[in-house]
């Protein structure tokens, strides 16, 4: 009885129903789809900078330094040039004096080449070599090379990849490194390393 009485007085026009199935809901769909996809994208964007800790464009290094020659062939240990690695937080880039030890007279062990000539004149000029820094960490991260290299006994390659094979200087952080430069990588390594000191306490790395 109640159901009967409360049925819409003028029964609905089929036309309206038809309309219902065609366009308009689609419009609604489009709008919401557009909205949601843009929302997703913008979310993605807002997460990106978390990973972006390094320059995303290639930088031009002053000299085409070949790690391969120095590390693989001459077997110079990394820490001879990157003096900070064992002593301090930052493994530094040699500014010239260290290069001069071998190169000041211009005849490096494997003969003359153009790059070395440029190096020599740079050294002669007395200016430090304008290396461009490519591996950067955000300010709130404190990464101590000493802690990892000396205390943790971790090999450079583990993080920096096969540097010994490189023909060219780093024009951007080497990919394997950069992709995982986010916290996830550190945490993963810290969790799997058996070292009791390598916990996941935030204060270990964050200042």
């Amino acid at each position, binding site marked *: 009885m109640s159901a009967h009485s409360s049925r819409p007085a003028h029964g609905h026009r089929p036309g309206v129903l038809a309309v219902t199935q065609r366009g308009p809901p689609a419009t609604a769909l489009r709008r919401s789809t557009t909205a949601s996809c843009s929302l997703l994208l913008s979310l993605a964007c807002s997460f990106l900078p978390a990973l972006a800790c390094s320059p995303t464009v290639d930088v031009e290094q002053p000299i085409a330094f070949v790690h391969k020659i120095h590390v693989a062939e001459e077997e110079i240990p990394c820490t001879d040039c990157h003096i900070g690695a064992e002593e301090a937080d930052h493994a530094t880039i040699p500014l010239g004096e260290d290069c001069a030890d071998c190169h000041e007279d211009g005849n490096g062990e494997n003969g003359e080449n153009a790059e070395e000539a440029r190096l020599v004149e740079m050294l002669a000029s007395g200016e430090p070599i304008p290396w461009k820094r490519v591996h950067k960490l955000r300010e709130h991260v404190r990464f101590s090379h000493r802690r990892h290299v000396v205390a943790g006994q971790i090999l450079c390659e583990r993080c920096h990849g096969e540097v010994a094979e490189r023909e060219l200087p780093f024009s951007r952080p080497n990919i394997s490194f950069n992709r995982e430069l986010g916290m996830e990588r550190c945490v993963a390594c810290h969790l799997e390393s058996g070292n009791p000191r390598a916990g996941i*306490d935030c204060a270990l790395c964050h200042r």
Partner: protein
Amino acid sequence: MAKELSGSELKTRRWGMAVDLDRCTGCGACVAACKVENNIPESSPEEAQMGRVLRWIRVARREEPEGDRASVSLYPALCYHCGNAPCTLVCPVHATYKGIDGLVGQIYARCIGCRYCMAACPYTVKVFNWSEPRWQPELRAHTNPEVSLRYRGVVEKCTFCSHRLQRARDDAAVEGRDVREEDYQPACVEVCPAKALTFGDLDDDHSGAATARRSPRGYQLLEELGTDPAIVYLNRRERRV
């Protein structure tokens, strides 16, 4: 060397402090030391007027009237690194948390600035960067590189100079031993002219802090709240802070 050291050998500590109020003269040297060590910028006079001074440790003054006079006491107040820290319970993003060796950490990069931890802290020791800190360019260049410069909108607090603990741990690890007490002293303790502050491992019964804690003069601030602060005050007199 560090390789040999297994987890069992690595001692877990409970770093704590004893403040001898019979020695403390409220000179404020600890405050200055903290400011220098932890890159705490000076507030502008206007901010100070509004009560927005950034301080990780402050010298509080308590006055208990005795007729026309008062028994005044001055005591340094800093983060108490509670064993059962109310602030860490309420943080929504794991920005303040119970860290290694019982230190209560504060991660500025994570903090969203809801200031819930400040509201929850019964000791009112957390401070907030209400606006972008202004640094004299001359002085900004000479800040301590081991501590980050904070920015607008995050909560900060005393960390017991945990960066010094990090250094000490590194050195210990390199030498393949445990951290000794003398390796790690916060700036305020190091500088105190009256030698009123003693810092050490509360779990180690022989440490200065632990013995102080056992002393009959010793008591904790607001112990009735059960927060188990890692800082114990020593006071010979009846008056308490």
